[in-house]
């Protein structure tokens, strides 16, 4: 009999509403687990123990007295620290926002609270979501539960680690260039970045607004679907959200996958991809073939431009998005209260870490007069071409398959001083952000005791087929059920 904290939200949900267990019981089980492992892992920047227990007690009362039940009644959920939570500080992993307490909830938080979900804490992340290893956080490095010397991936590394280490039942991350899928891959979790515009970004602290989406990091694809049902939907506070009829993603899990056509772009498995990773991906493809899928190898040469295209757009937007942190209205403020305001705010902005500064500088450069056409405009053109090339591919294929990350997790400190090699590790994930199409990552194997992630990507609004394929894979394999030994 597994301990409560080991169960999925889907499993806990029915037991909670049936009254088999109480939300308080579950919360204590989880908080005790956190107590035991958090010292090694460091998933969280801020924990809300007392508040979470209070909430659990309230939910228990509600479960007893009221018939109206939300879909997440009593389920503890970890939130990436760049998603605004009213009265809970939201740091973005930065010294800049060390004491910043938002006066409002992100739309996704409102939706989760309305369904009875309980926020247990805010998870660690690369500073302002800029990184692929959760090493750039001002609050320290999160350690990979499978091997504490290795990185958890990023930027939603805290959420990924919290899921794998059973420090949360559900978690939210955000994905600008792979920031959900990378930690999912490195931690052996399940995570999805949905079609741009499906989930409200209101309350997500912007890094690169045209690329990013909030999304779930969970123990399996069923929990992903459960959470998507709550997160997805038009928001009048976010003009970029789509107005579409409501779907039940839990239902779409059981969609028949026989006959689906899989494309395997050779660029996803080219130079720079670990042999062990390639092998695991091919094994997964062969397995899907046995369930009636067919596959073809294809070539999408434009993929080679994806990383520079992504970084130019992301850094350009970031240089503008992060301009507001000048210490005047909120955020880090130097002691000095005299002098030219230019000097004062420049000093305030020294609170940014080196990676954030690098991206602001490069983005400013890319948007400057004389360089705009050469960089930003060219990146937009590549973006249009990439989108078109992928749309064309999806006329012939239902999904594309490849590795989420070209390698297994690397060691802490291995790439942090080599930004280019760090950027190149995003090669397989950034495409979905550039095109705005959905992609998910599920566990598909191990190498040297470290997890490998399988990435499934599809055309706009093809979440249902992606979920169905992932669900079939997880029904037939147990990679996602494997747990690191921590205690």
């Amino acid at each position, binding site marked *: 009999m597994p301990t409560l904290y080991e169960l999925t939200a889907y499993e806990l949900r029915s037991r909670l509403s049936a009254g088999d267990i109480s939300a308080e019981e579950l919360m204590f089980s989880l908080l005790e687990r956190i107590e035991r492992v958090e010292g090694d892992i460091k998933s969280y920047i801020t924990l809300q123990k007392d508040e979470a227990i209070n909430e659990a007690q309230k939910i228990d009362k509600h479960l007893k007295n009221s018939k109206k039940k939300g879909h997440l009644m009593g389920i503890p959920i970890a939130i990436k620290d760049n998603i605004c939570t009213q009265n809970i500080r939201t740091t973005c992993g930065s010294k800049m926002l060390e004491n910043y307490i*938002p006066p*409002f909830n992100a739309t996704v938080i409102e939706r989760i609270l309305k369904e009875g979900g309980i926020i247990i804490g805010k998870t660690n992340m690369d500073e302002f979501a800029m990184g692929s290893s959760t090493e750039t956080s001002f609050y320290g490095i999160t350690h990979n539960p499978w091997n504490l010397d290795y990185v958890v991936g990023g930027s939603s590394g805290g959420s990924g680690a919290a899921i794998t280490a059973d420090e949360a039942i559900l978690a939210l991350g955000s994905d600008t260039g792979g920031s959900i899928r990378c930690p999912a891959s490195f931690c052996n979790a399940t995570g999805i970045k949905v079609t741009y515009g499906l989930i409200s970004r209101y309350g*997500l602290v912007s890094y690169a607004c045209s690329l990013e989406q909030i999304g779930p990091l969970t123990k399996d694809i069923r929990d992903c679907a459960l959470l998507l049902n709550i997160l997805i939907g038009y928001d*009048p506070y976010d003009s*970029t959200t789509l107005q579409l009829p409501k779907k039940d993603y839990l239902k779409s899990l059981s969609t028949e996958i026989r006959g689906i056509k899989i494309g395997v772009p050779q660029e996803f498995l080219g130079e720079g991809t670990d042999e062990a990773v390639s092998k695991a991906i091919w094994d997964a493809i062969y397995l899907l073939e046995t369930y009636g899928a067919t596959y073809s190898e294809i070539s999408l040469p434009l993929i080679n431009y994806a990383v520079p295209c992504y970084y130019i757009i992301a850094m350009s937007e970031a240089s503008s998005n992060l301009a507001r942190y000048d210490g005047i209205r*909120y955020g880090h403020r130097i002691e000095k209260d005299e002098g030219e*305001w*230019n000097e004062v*705010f420049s000093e305030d902005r020294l609170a940014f870490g080196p990676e954030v500064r690098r991206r602001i500088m490069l983005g400013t450069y890319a948007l400057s007069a004389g360089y705009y056409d050469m960089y930003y405009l060219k990146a937009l053109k590549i973006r249009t071409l990439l989108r078109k090339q992928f749309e064309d591919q999806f006329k012939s294929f239902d999904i594309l398959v490849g590795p989420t990350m070209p390698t297994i997790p690397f060691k802490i400190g291995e790439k942090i001083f080599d930004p280019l090699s760090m950027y190149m590790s995003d090669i397989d994930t950034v495409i979905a952000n550039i095109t705005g199409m959905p992609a998910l990552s599920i566990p598909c194997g191990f190498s040297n005791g470290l997890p490998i992630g399988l990435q499934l990507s599809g055309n706009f609004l093809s979440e249902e087929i992606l979920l169905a394929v992932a669900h079939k894979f997880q029904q037939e394999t147990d990679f996602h059920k494997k747990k690191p030994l921590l205690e």
Partner: protein
Amino acid sequence: MAMDKTKSKSSKSKSAKARPLKIKVKEEDILIGLEIHVQLTNLKTKLFCGCSTDYRGKEPNNFVCPICLGLPGTLPVVNKKALELAIEVCLALGCQIPERTLFYRKNYYYPDMPKNFQITQYHKAGGSPIGLGGQVSFDFNMEKKVVNLIRIQLEEDPGRLTYLGSIISSEYSLVDYNRAGITLLEIVTEPDLRSPEEAREFLQKIRSILEHLGVADCSLEGSMRCDANISLKGGNRVEIKNISSFKAVQHALQHEIIRQRRQRADGVLTVMETRHWDDNTGRTISLRTKEEEHDYRYFPEPDLVPIEITPEQIEELKAKMPELPDERRDRFILEYQVPRYDAGVLTSSKSLADFFENCIKLYSEPKNISNWILSELLRYLNELNIEINESTVTPEQFTTMLKRIDAGTISRRSAKKVLMDMINLGKPPDQIIEEDGHKRISDPKKLEPIADKIIEKNQKATNDAIKDEKAINFLLGEMMKETHGTADPIIGLQILSKKIYQLRRKEEST
């Protein structure tokens, strides 16, 4: 922006005039283009959030929310009504309206901007502002003048910095974000204006159009501001910022033209630069030269989606379009037989045109009303530097006064005095007439003693009148003086004539 008012009493215009010009430059050689910023003050909420726009005279930083404060995680959402009003303005000014319009970010650091970028529109790099082209015509020196517009764009107003005294001497600046996010339209003209006076006339016309559209009340403080580009033909262009009244536009332009002419006369090359107009000193100071110009790093606002404008939407708005100043002027000419110039002045402000028409409803002598408005009412209002809607004079009061003249209750001369008191004291005309004895004296019993007094005082004139009847007019004049113009001149003349006749008879009999 404050309306056309009295000539300034401040020292700045004097000091400018005191320095003689060394070289004459023909008006045709002056090139002036304007960038006008108008708040769409009739909107209830800001451009990208639900905050109230009613911030004037309120506590600082009380009309703000996470969105207009640009707090991390917030996103803008376009105010649909603002978009509608902007399209109406574009239609009224004859702009082309694109099928698709989008917002851009203009990036620069300044403490009055919560996000350190302004959401605006852009005309380059694939950007498409809400209005392109367009024309505004107005009468100037009895001729029709046409100014071409380059574009109109929709943008958010920044907050406001307050200094202790002047911008230079102030030890600190205070920032108020109540204004941040208010809807602004930027109207950019070609350099088609040829004099400061023309510029002022043009602004007045724009203002009247906006008010007739019902999109803005431009008399509100800071609701209409403008930057001006000025050059002398063949010379470099100078941009002047921080002009916030019609009067200041004229002064700033006059000042700058003199500066540039002077430089030309001295053989100095005018530097291409941005200058700041200081209303207090009546001077411009250099802000930055071209080399120091900001690189605004414009790029499309990723948090907003492009807005499609359908032909149906445009037709719908066109159908709702109210009567504009030109149509109204032409109607005044036709319907009320008012001369073109007068009709132009009457429609130069919506409140004045409304006042005129409300008067007509109460008193069907349009020409008389128009004459009294143009020759008297406007003069007194200008002396007080107020507009008709700021004064207490109502159409009822104004027409009552005109009716009293017609009825002979007061003379035209006392009517002017009554009108002045109506404006200054805010009292209704009948009360003034009653209290101050403006009432015309036509009772012979009251006039007779006065006539006796005049005759006694003016022996010589009386003797002249006895000899020559025409000289009696002098005595009548004296009687009018004595009664402050209230004596009924016809009755007065009869009484004086009778008295002189009696005197002549008396003289003849002796």
